[in-house]
């Protein structure tokens, strides 16, 4: 596969793994390997880690050679998100931040106003900002205009597994974006990831579809292969959709076999 370039950085993998929801760190490590991911998101919470008290996720990702992409999950205001990005930069020594500013705790949809404000401030401070956004093309353009290194529209709500609910909006974002478009949220299975790449997304960020699958390691492989297939198909160029059939076999040279009864 051709490499993906975000903020001047070349990535071989078009699958960014979200680390949320794995039963344990060992499973996460195995999924990272099978996904062949280069980047994996992590969140910041108070010490000690209440969910997985044994072992540090940073060490686990280090061992499998996957780089940490900190996020601002759980932030509802630009101010909280900016401070969380500062903490992440200090904790992991990276300027990359997956920016999430949530506006509602049931839908987990982004708060557009706070999101743009936080993105602008973080870009000004030198962060490489990867914002989780809705599938609104205008908002995506606003995020690009303030200097985000990519835009990460949702396919459907986080953890919903509903795939891409509005591929038309996503295709408008893709057509007009001058930065990479990463489908973030909504992937439910490998075919959703394939469709995203076929549509023209540059990459997919996938967490729950893998971590909450019955067999996360197998699903990590499936999603990786789906992405590969989708990217290849995008480059190969799909045929146009038609309402009526178009025979793939020529009628030229068709033998006359319907002999009239009188000639027998």
């Amino acid at each position, binding site marked *: 596969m051709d490499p993906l370039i975000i903020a001047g950085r070349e990535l071989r993998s078009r699958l960014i793994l979200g680390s*949320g929801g794995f039963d344990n760190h060992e499973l996460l490590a195995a999924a990272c390997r099978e996904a062949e991911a280069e980047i994996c998101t992590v969140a*910041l*919470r108070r*010490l000690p880690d209440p969910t997985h008290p044994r072992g540090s*996720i940073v060490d686990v990702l280090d061992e499998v050679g996957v780089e940490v992409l900190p*996020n601002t*999950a759980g932030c509802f205001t630009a101010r909280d998100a900016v*401070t969380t990005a500062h*903490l992440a930069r200090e*904790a992991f020594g990276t300027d990359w931040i997956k920016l999430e500013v949530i506006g509602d705790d049931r839908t987990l949809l982004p708060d557009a106003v706070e999101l743009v404000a936080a993105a602008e401030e973080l870009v000004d401070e030198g962060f490489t900002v990867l914002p989780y956004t809705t599938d609104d093309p205008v908002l995506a353009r606003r995020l690009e205009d303030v200097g985000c290194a990519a835009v990460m529209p949702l396919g459907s709500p986080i953890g919903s597994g509903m795939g891409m609910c509005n591929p038309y909006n996503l295709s408008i974002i893709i057509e007009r974006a001058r930065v990479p478009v990463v489908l973030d949220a909504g992937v439910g299975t490998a075919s959703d990831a394939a469709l995203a790449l076929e549509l023209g997304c540059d990459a997919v960020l996938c967490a729950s579809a893998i971590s909450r699958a019955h067999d996360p390691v197998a699903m990590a492989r499936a999603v990786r292969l789906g992405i590969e297939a989708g990217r290849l198909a995008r480059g190969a160029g799909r045929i146009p959709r038609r309402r009526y059939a178009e025979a793939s076999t020529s009628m030229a040279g068709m033998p006359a076999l319907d002999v009239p009864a009188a000639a027998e």
Partner: protein
Amino acid sequence: MRVTVNGEERELQAGATVVSVLELLDVAPAARGVAVALDGEVVSRARWSQAQLRDGALVEVVSAIQGG
């Protein structure tokens, strides 16, 4: 003096620094992937041993968990 560390009230001696808080939480100062906010502002690792806490200070000590 009393300070709030990760939402819990703790008693620390006057002159306590960020490093004193880390000791309280049993976190090695060299631990990777740890960051500290003091009264809402991030304290860089290089300043942990000097950054003194005021009485009533709010300290948040965070690290990476699975997420996103």
